[in-house]
């Protein structure tokens, strides 16, 4: 590959294309499994050009809930955006509506790249190994819950409110609550912090009732 993607050899590209095609053509894989595998292959390539993609948004919710939440597109944050764009183009993705939205028609996979700076803690990121040597990086559970809480408060979105609760209830033993509340206190609207405090109580009640 020319330009910033020159750290990727043609063999690397061909290898990943073959891996992606094998998954795409296998009808035994669910949409969730297919996307996870494809994202791990894309991550493998992107890391070669110094870009670390982190899955955020609905697809991150899907991962933490083992596919219980369904979403079509994959939102990811990455660094070295120019090199990453070249990689996506070489894999058959085309730009839609500016530089944020990418789509691969053959895979029916839309990718949205909202920002190239991760406004979350890298220490909290979840690393999920898929196949031997292939991983995906996922926003930390605390930052994901905080993101859903923002949606619940600022957009008054009931779906965001519910998934804040479900994520907190299902992952309660994994959550660093001190970090979560510290971040929530930095929000311009105190309602986010209050919402999360109330959600923690609600989550513990929901677990005890179960």
């Amino acid at each position, binding site marked *: 590959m020319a330009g910033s993607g020159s750290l990727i050899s043609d063999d690397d590209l061909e290898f990943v294309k073959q891996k992606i095609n094998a998954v795409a053509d296998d009808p035994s894989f669910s949409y969730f*499994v297919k996307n996870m595998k494809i994202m791990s292959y894309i991550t493998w390539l992107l890391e070669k050009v110094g870009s670390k993609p982190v899955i955020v948004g609905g697809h991150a919710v899907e991962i933490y809930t083992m596919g219980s*939440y369904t979403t079509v597109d994959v939102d990811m944050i990455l660094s070295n955006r120019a090199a990453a764009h070249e990689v996506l183009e070489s894999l058959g993705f085309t730009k839609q509506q500016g530089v944020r939205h990418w789509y691969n028609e053959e895979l029916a996979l839309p990718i949205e790249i909202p920002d190239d700076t991760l406004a979350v803690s890298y220490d909290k990121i*979840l*690393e*999920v190994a898929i196949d031997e040597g292939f991983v995906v990086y996922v926003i930390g559970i605390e930052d994901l819950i905080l993101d859903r809480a923002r949606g619940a408060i600022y957009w008054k979105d*009931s779906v965001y409110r519910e998934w804040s609760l479900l994520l907190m209830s*299902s992952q309660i033993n*994994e959550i660093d609550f001190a970090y979560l509340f510290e971040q929530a206190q930095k929000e311009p609207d105190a309602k986010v912090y209050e919402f999360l405090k109330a959600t923690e109580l609600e989550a513990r009640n929901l677990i005890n*009732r179960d």
Partner: protein
Amino acid sequence: MKKMDFKNLISVDQKRKFQKMQIRITASAGTKIREESAVPPRSEVELGLLLRAIKKTEADYQKEGKLIKHGRKWKLNI
């Protein structure tokens, strides 16, 4: 306990996304619709069932060796 199909619980999100889009379009056209009443939140029973389903999926994955959790490093054998 109220009996509900898990797939229906999940598909509610998709339906509500569509409803919300419609609400936004209608709102931009000047018609007043109360969003909360048009898109009702899930009941406590539904949320409880959904939580149970999520935990069961995770437990099954772990039992079958499809999911191994080590703090912030997971292995998914899928």
